[in-house]
């Protein structure tokens, strides 16, 4: 199987998108003419069908979690977030903390609310010594959008959301457009 680009689309040796073959098998639709005669498609179809059967068999099995599961989950919840995965927040009584994943989710949501833009990833770092942070965003944009103007608006939105919602002042926002989508 060949990977194209970042691996977002996986092509079989024959050039057909493997996801299309898998989707057909999972939906229970018969293979088309090419797939019936192509050894690569036939193998992919059979593999997906076998996996689908196994998944459905496991899905109907009753789940009987041991009593320790609740304690384990609550322990994990209490332990999170780790100090290393937090941002510092200014306070007159000494610094408080903000979970980095929560902060990133807020900034991604601010970008997602914009017309024609979707956040993919968001990394926030506080280089120190203060609470000022740097943000690195990857985004997807609607095809045809003026990318320079759109990313400038994203930058403004992220600056504002970080200050007004998180309470974390920003020093810089780096934006990388990693994908486009067509409506």
């Amino acid at each position: 199987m060949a990977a194209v680009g970042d691996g977002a689309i996986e092509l079989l040796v024959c050039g057909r998108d493997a996801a299309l073959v898998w989707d057909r098998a999972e939906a229970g639709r018969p293979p088309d003419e090419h797939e019936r005669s192509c050894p690569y498609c036939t193998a992919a179809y059979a593999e997906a069908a076998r996996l689908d059967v196994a998944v459905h068999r496991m899905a109907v099995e009753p789940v009987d979690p041991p009593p320790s599961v609740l304690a384990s989950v609550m322990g994990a919840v209490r332990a999170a977030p780790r100090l290393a995965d937090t941002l510092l927040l200014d306070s007159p009584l000494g610094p408080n903390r903000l979970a980095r994943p929560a902060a990133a989710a807020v900034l991604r949501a601010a970008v997602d609310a914009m017309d024609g833009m979707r956040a993919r990833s968001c990394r926030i770092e506080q280089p120190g010594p203060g609470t000022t942070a740097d943000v690195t965003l990857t985004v997807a944009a609607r095809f045809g959008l003026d990318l320079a103007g759109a990313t400038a608006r994203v930058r403004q939105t992220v600056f504002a959301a970080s200050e007004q919602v998180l309470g974390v002042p920003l020093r810089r926002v780096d934006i990388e457009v990693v994908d486009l989508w067509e409506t």
Partner: protein
Amino acid sequence: MGDVTLHVTDTAVASMAAAAARAVPGVVVLSAELAPDPEPFVRVAIMIPTGDNCRDIAAAVQRSVTRTLAEQWGRSATVEVTVAEVALP
């Protein structure tokens, strides 16, 4: 009346801290604990609704917990608040 010995357990201190944190509007307390430090150190983890300023809410919770512990426990504690979750719509 003879001497009276008062001992407040870690659990009781954590409960005071949680109640004081909950008194701040919009705050959901996820955990509160008295850390095993030489000096009283209280950690509180909270969830807040989106739109509220995380820094300001954390500071309000910190003030509330610090004041409550001083009044009810009679000791001054360092309080650190962690905003662990922001509830997005």
